[in-house]
């Protein structure tokens, strides 16, 4: 992979909280299409790395950072780039479904409304497109006015994806999105993620190696705040270059 054209890049990223360094110099690139999985044992810094790209760490007490974070070639921490504008560009979906206590429609249109879109035909188009891309349209098209909280966990999580897609981001960050779902809902979600990755960059944090193997085109293995290995998923699982990677993917620790 070459640096130019990558959706997300970090160079020697050191980040942490108070006196603890969580990331100890990570250099990684995420291509503009396809799913990139971040795997590694608990506490290795997967989520912290993910949250550097949309600066969600900034809200946590004692956060510090050194090194570069580039989003579509631009410095994510550039003071002239407003936080809100960055987040329109980088969507995020969390571990547990977190729909707002609003209707399906208002959940999806939350971002566009913040961005100042007010024409009803444009909003309607965004609504349909986002829900279709999140593969939720057929299930909710007759209940767009119903509260988002009336739906199942899997539907809520896909609604959260639709909500993230509504601002037309080039990148979506997924932080263990299937951890609260049952196997059937997980399978459906993974299908959605694969479809999505044909158009935009998806960065997926997961502690489930089977999931990474099923979904991701590329996989990065993080251990104790360092990037151990990064490459094609098939290659990383079948023939890892590093001994540590091999031990982790074969389940000897973690």
């Amino acid at each position, binding site marked *: 992979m070459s640096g130019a054209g990558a959706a997300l890049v970090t160079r020697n990223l050191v980040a942490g909280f108070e006196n603890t360094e969580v990331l100890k110099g990570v250099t990684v690139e995420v291509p503009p299409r396809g799913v990139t999985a971040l795997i590694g044992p608990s506490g290795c810094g997967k989520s912290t790395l993910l949250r550097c790209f949309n600066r969600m760490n900034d*809200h946590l007490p004692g956060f510090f950072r050194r090194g570069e974070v580039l989003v579509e070639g631009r410095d994510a921490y550039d003071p002239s780039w407003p936080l*809100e504008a*960055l987040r329109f560009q980088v*969507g995020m979906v969390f571990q547990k*479904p977190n729909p707002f*206590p609003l209707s399906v429609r208002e959940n999806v249109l939350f971002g566009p409304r*913040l961005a100042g879109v007010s024409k009803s035909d444009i909003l309607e188009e965004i609504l349909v497109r986002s829900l279709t891309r999140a593969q939720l349209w057929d299930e909710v098209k007759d209940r767009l006015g119903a*509260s988002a909280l*009336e739906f*199942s966990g899997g539907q809520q999580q896909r609604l959260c994806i639709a909500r993230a897609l509504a601002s037309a981001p080039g990148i979506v960050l997924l932080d263990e999105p299937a951890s609260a779902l049952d196997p059937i809902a997980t399978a459906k979600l993974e299908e959605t993620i694969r479809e999505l990755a044909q158009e935009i960059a998806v960065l997926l944090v997961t502690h489930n190696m089977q999931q990474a193997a099923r979904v991701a085109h590329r996989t990065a293995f993080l251990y104790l705040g360092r990037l151990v290995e990064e490459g094609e998923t098939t290659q990383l699982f079948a023939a890892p270059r590093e001994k540590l990677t091999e031990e982790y993917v074969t389940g000897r620790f973690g």
Partner: protein
Amino acid sequence: MSLVRRWLAEGTAQRWLAGACVMIALTMIGGLVAVVVDVAGRFFWPRPLVEVTLTDGSKVLGEVWDREPDPASPSGTRIRLKVGNRDLSAVDFRWIRHSEIRQESVPADAWLLERQENGNFYGFPRRLEVESGSLAAADPQFRQTLQRMATEAHRLLEEERILLRRVGRQHAPVAKLMALVAGAQRRGVDTRELETRLAAAQAREDDATRPAMKRLVAVREALAQGTLVMGTAEGQEKAIPVATIVRAVPENTLRGWKKLGLYISRWWEFLAGQPRESNTEGGILPAIFGTALMVLLMTVAVVPLGVVTAVYLNEYAREGTFTNAVRLALANLAGVPSIVFGAFGLAFFVYTLGGSIDRLFFADVLPTPTFGTGGILWASLTLALLTLPVVVVATEEGLQAVPQAVRDGARALGATRWQTLRRVVLPYATPGILTGAILAVARGAGEVAPLMLTGVVKLAPSMPFDGIPPFLHLDRKFMHLGFYIYDVGFQSPNVEAGKPMVYAAVLVLLVLVVVLNLAAITLRNRLRRKLRGSAV
């Protein structure tokens, strides 16, 4: 021994104890409600008029209000008889020992007259006296004629009321000028010009009101016509102008639906009528209205203030000594006796704030105060202060219950802190805010002490909301159910007669608070259902 230990370990004893505590609490609440409902419910129901012949040969007519043990003789009983006829005998009630009674009867021709003045009259109708002559009670036309005269009198009274209002409205410019003159005289300013204007205004008022005044005189003359002559049990006669009779009820001949109709009409008069006889008779509409309006104004004041305070404490302020100090102060505020709030309201709102407003905007009528005296606005604000801690604490709990995941979700979508608060956090916390409002309403509706210093009165000449612009008169004094209960129950010259009115007013206050609470609770539950949805 081991049995007892096992019993304790399994918690059986504790469970019974808890159940007993619940029962005690329920019994006390249920007992209170039962007593209130019982006394208030029976009060308006027609009672038989009993004529008692005493051993000395004298006769008394009245309603039996109670039969109770005689404190003078342990085995004997006595009856409490409402004898009314205050204009003749000066006492409303008589206690008669059972041993003094020779005979009790329920005469069919006994009537109860409810009157505008001097309370009830118990007696026997003798005749009607009109200009054209008199009509004996035995005449078949008697009842119809009385009915017709009563209807006519009510029409005239209504006309009198309208005329008085019309005349009163014409008086406003004169009243204003009189206040200006008084103010100018106090200040030693030349008042000649004002007095000329006052004289002109008075002339204009006289001109404008002359036809109405003339008609008023005629109406009053017509009202004085027609009297009902009643005989008492002792044989005295008393002429009562028909216009002063609210209701003439032959109570002993009433049956079934007629009784129920009278009962309902008495309740209606109580709920929708104006008070009479220093509140011991008539209705409590101004008190109901004053209470509801005061609670409403209080809610409008306290909810925004409390919510903003809680939002600042919970969302913006950095946790530390300052926020802890504020929370401690609020918790202590909740424990301050309400009379202290009343004193503060008097000193700060009425004298300081109201006095300043008067000096700035109503200086020309000083020393007559406008806002510098107790009024519904100051009373509401004082109660808002009193209920502030409740709203702040409940709102803070509501805000703390908003999941961090939902806040993060909004931030990750590019919402600023304010947008997250406005669009996600506050809607999510609405049930908590409403809980606070409910508690505030329940607390505020029941407070009396602070109001006594900040604007409540026994009898308000006009309601704080009426048809005269600007419609809502925040400077006016008002009546309140809680104060009505205290005043009629304990400060009234005729406590015995007013007692059932107190119970009825308590019932109305309870119902009012329950209705206000139910409305808010229904709203909250509906929101809560919407917010919780089905579990994730």
